[in-house]
């Protein structure tokens, strides 16, 4: 156990129980209350393969600084019961100086859990809950966790009241007594898990998931149409968009499959509405042919792929970064398009909004590669700034005297698009090779000119500084993309404390490959560690096929579901520094 009185900056808590035990609710209340207290945090849930019920655990990390990833080890494990402990044990390893809260009535602490060396506090959660009319163990657990970390009871009660009030006054009253009882229990146990002073300068937290942030980024960018076919872990994007679009005058249609959803989005965009759909790997596979149509017919559309473990149905609830290849290379023929990847949960908003802007500006399909670890994580973040990325499509206003050519060859490759309803702008959008006017053609010159045009508009576009994020300096570089950015940044902070300077280069723009900007950011690099969550090292291969990286290269990659964490990345760098 940590020395009494030590104040931590970040505490990781797992609340585990079988389905229906309410572990997730307890975690959600803690997270929001922490936000009200000026802290930051992140919550992920671990759910079993059962559709309903089965195992569930709330995995939380709370801190007095913004957090961008979960930690690999936990300080506190509160077990409402041990029914699924063996499955969870590997997912939530405990620190040796951590604490296990175990209810003696739930049986012995399982060996897999106890092996960590963490101390055990026996607290009779069930008995305590029974003593309170309408009392529930999960609320005792929430009170207990709050007590350990020094969270204010007022905020806890406030959040619980809003969450439980639909269940009636009695539930709220019982919840309150449970929270207090839990807190009182914590006071009787050793200290050492308090989080330091809150960030009170930056109040006004947002509580948002990556999937919700994608939805918000889309509507901020100008999306007013979505087509939907549900798939884990992307469904929450669509479920957020459905009521939200309706409220702002847009529409969402539930399609019969992804072949349909992508075409509905393309159809709406042809009609002049910025359109989006969201899916995961299996759905993206079904959409590929139509994404090629969008590329050839130059209709903007955004597809968000919340990646999960593949191939095939894989592990629907777990993260991986293994759809890079299909997103970049999955089209038949040469079909210039855009692939971008959010770097953190908060960045899901930024990147999606940027994707809408890019798709609309260049009249291309844009694929956003999010993943489960971002999409389904809920974070406390500072209120995001307003971005200037907006859907701004170059359209034809019908006022040109000469005959309108939809696919006219222009200096930047972008041709004004006539929107149905515009007199004089009638044309047929076509996936067949066509001439400038749009009429199908098999002429060499048309194929060549239209291919060049579509290539040039994407290749020569100014992506500005948004292509990636660079932090730190030094000759040692961690080069990564997407959701590994959070753990990589954390690794770099920890290394810095040990006097090891490492630079991070995290790519947001995947395709077109930002070669010049990337190489400039790597100038002077002597060692580059390429990190990614895929079995075959798709990102590494993609990098190598596009440029020669400077210096000595090492790579660290593995498939999901075991997320790559900060400490592991840090250790790779340390080992390299001290061979």
């Amino acid at each position, binding site marked *: 156990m940590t020395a009494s009185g030590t104040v931590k900056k970040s505490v990781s808590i797992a609340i585990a129980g079988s389905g229906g035990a309410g572990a997730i609710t307890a975690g959600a209340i803690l997270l929001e209350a922490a936000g009200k207290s000026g802290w930051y945090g992140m919550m992920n849930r671990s759910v079993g393969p059962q559709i309903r019920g089965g195992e569930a655990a709330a995995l939380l990390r709370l801190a007095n600084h913004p957090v961008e990833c979960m930690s690999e080890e936990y300080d506190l494990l509160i077990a409402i019961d041990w029914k699924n402990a063996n499955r969870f044990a590997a997912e939530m390893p405990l620190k040796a100086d951590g604490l296990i809260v175990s209810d003696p009535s739930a049986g012995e602490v399982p060996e897999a859990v106890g092996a960590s060396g963490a101390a055990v506090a026996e607290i009779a959660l069930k008995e305590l809950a029974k003593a309170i009319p309408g009392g529930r163990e999960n609320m005792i657990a929430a009170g207990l966790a709050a007590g350990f970390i020094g969270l204010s009871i007022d905020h806890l009660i406030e959040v619980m009241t809003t969450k439980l009030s639909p269940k009636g006054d009695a539930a709220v009253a019982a919840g309150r007594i449970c929270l207090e009882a839990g807190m009182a229990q914590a006071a009787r146990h050793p200290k050492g898990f308090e989080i330091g002073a809150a960030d009170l300068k930056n109040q006004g937290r947002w509580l948002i998931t990556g999937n919700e942030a994608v939805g918000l980024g889309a509507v901020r960018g100008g999306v007013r149409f979505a087509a939907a076919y549900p798939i884990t872990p992307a469904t929450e994007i669509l479920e957020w968009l459905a009521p939200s679009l309706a*409220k702002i005058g847009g529409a969402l249609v539930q399609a019969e*499959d992804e072949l349909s959803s992508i075409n*509905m989005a393309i159809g709406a965009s042809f009609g002049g509405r910025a359109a989006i759909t969201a899916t995961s790997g299996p759905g993206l596979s079904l959409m590929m042919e139509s994404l090629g149509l969008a590329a050839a017919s130059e209709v903007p559309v955004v597809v968000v792929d919340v990646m999960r473990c593949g191939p095939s149905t894989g592990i629907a609830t777990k993260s991986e970064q293994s759809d890079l290849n299909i997103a970049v290379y999955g089209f038949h023929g040469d079909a210039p398009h855009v692939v971008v990847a959010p770097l953190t949960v908060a960045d899901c908003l930024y990147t999606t909004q940027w994707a809408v802007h890019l798709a609309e500006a260049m009249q291309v399909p844009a694929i956003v590669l999010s993943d489960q670890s971002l999409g389904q994580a809920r974070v406390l973040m500072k209120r995001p700034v307003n971005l200037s990325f907006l859907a701004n499509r170059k359209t034809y206003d019908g006022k040109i005297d000469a005959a309108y050519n939809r696919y006219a060859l222009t200096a930047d490759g972008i041709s004004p698009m006539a929107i149905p*309803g515009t007199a004089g702008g009638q044309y047929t959008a076509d996936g067949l090779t066509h001439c400038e006017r749009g009429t199908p053609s098999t002429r060499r010159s048309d194929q060549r000119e239209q291919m060049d045009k579509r290539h040039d508009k994407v290749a020569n576009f100014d992506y500005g500084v948004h292509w990636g994020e660079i932090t730190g300096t030094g000759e040692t570089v961690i080069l990564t993309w997407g959701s590994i950015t959070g753990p990589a940044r954390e690794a770099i902070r920890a290394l810095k404390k040990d006097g090891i300077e490492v630079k991070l280069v995290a790519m947001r723009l995947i395709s077109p490959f930002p070669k010049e900007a990337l190489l400039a950011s790597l100038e002077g690099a002597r060692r580059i560690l390429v990190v990614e969550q895929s079995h075959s090292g798709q990102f590494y291969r993609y990098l190598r096929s596009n440029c020669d990286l400077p210096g000595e290269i090492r790579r660290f990659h593995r498939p999901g579901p075991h997320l790559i964490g900060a400490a592991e990345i840090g250790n790779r760098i340390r080992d390299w520094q001290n061979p």
Partner: protein
Amino acid sequence: MNAPLPSPFKARDYRSDVAPVWCPGCGDFHVLMSITRALAALGRPPEEIAVISGIGCSSRIPAYTNCYGFHGVHGRSLALATGLKVARQDLTVLAISGDGDGYSIGGNHFLHACRRNVDMTYIVMDNRVYGMTKGQPSPTTEPDWDSALSPGGTGLGPFHPLVIALASGANFVAREFSGDLKGSTRTILEAIRHPGFSFVEILSPCVTYRPDEKDWKNTVHPAVVEETDDPARAARRIMTDDGMNTGILYRGRRAPYVAHVSDTRVDIAALERDFEI
């Protein structure tokens, strides 16, 4: 009833100058004529009409019109058209397929478009063969029709599009013969005017791979019974007809699809407030 004002448009206003790729004598020429005539009678300017298709000889039609068009991928005309119409209620939307495009690769969309009942018109040019790929059997081809891909025939009974449309909830079901320009024009116009999802199957001979279909002009006949709004009656009739009955067979009363709209209209800032704690 007041007589509608004469339309200021002629059929040729809906025709582009692009020459069709079709074989001489192909039934699709007639379908193009019927569509442009029906649009002229409808009287909406060409820029307010969108013609959306998949892939096949028949699906080439959008570029031959002077409307907004989309020649998409094989089988997905209905999905493209649905997205367009939901996003742009103000447009008149026609979706076009062949029997391969609409009933085989796009079969699932057909069921759900009927169910969804978006206000648009779906015209399938049925020649009971895959024309564009040079003569393979389609879902409406007779079981004993011999071809290189299915020597001796598929042995499969043909798919009955009208029954399926009706059972799936289409709000207007009709069959026409391409050679009957008057009948086809009238039915297409009625289909466009009827709210909801209107399905018009047009028998359109493929003179190249199904020369036997040249005889259709002798075998089609107008439906002997009046159209109905009773799906049970329509079903019984369509189930038992010889596949050559033409005319409007069913005209339903289902309300067309409308996308979910919220009573409260807010701006994006209001959506963002939900994330504040």
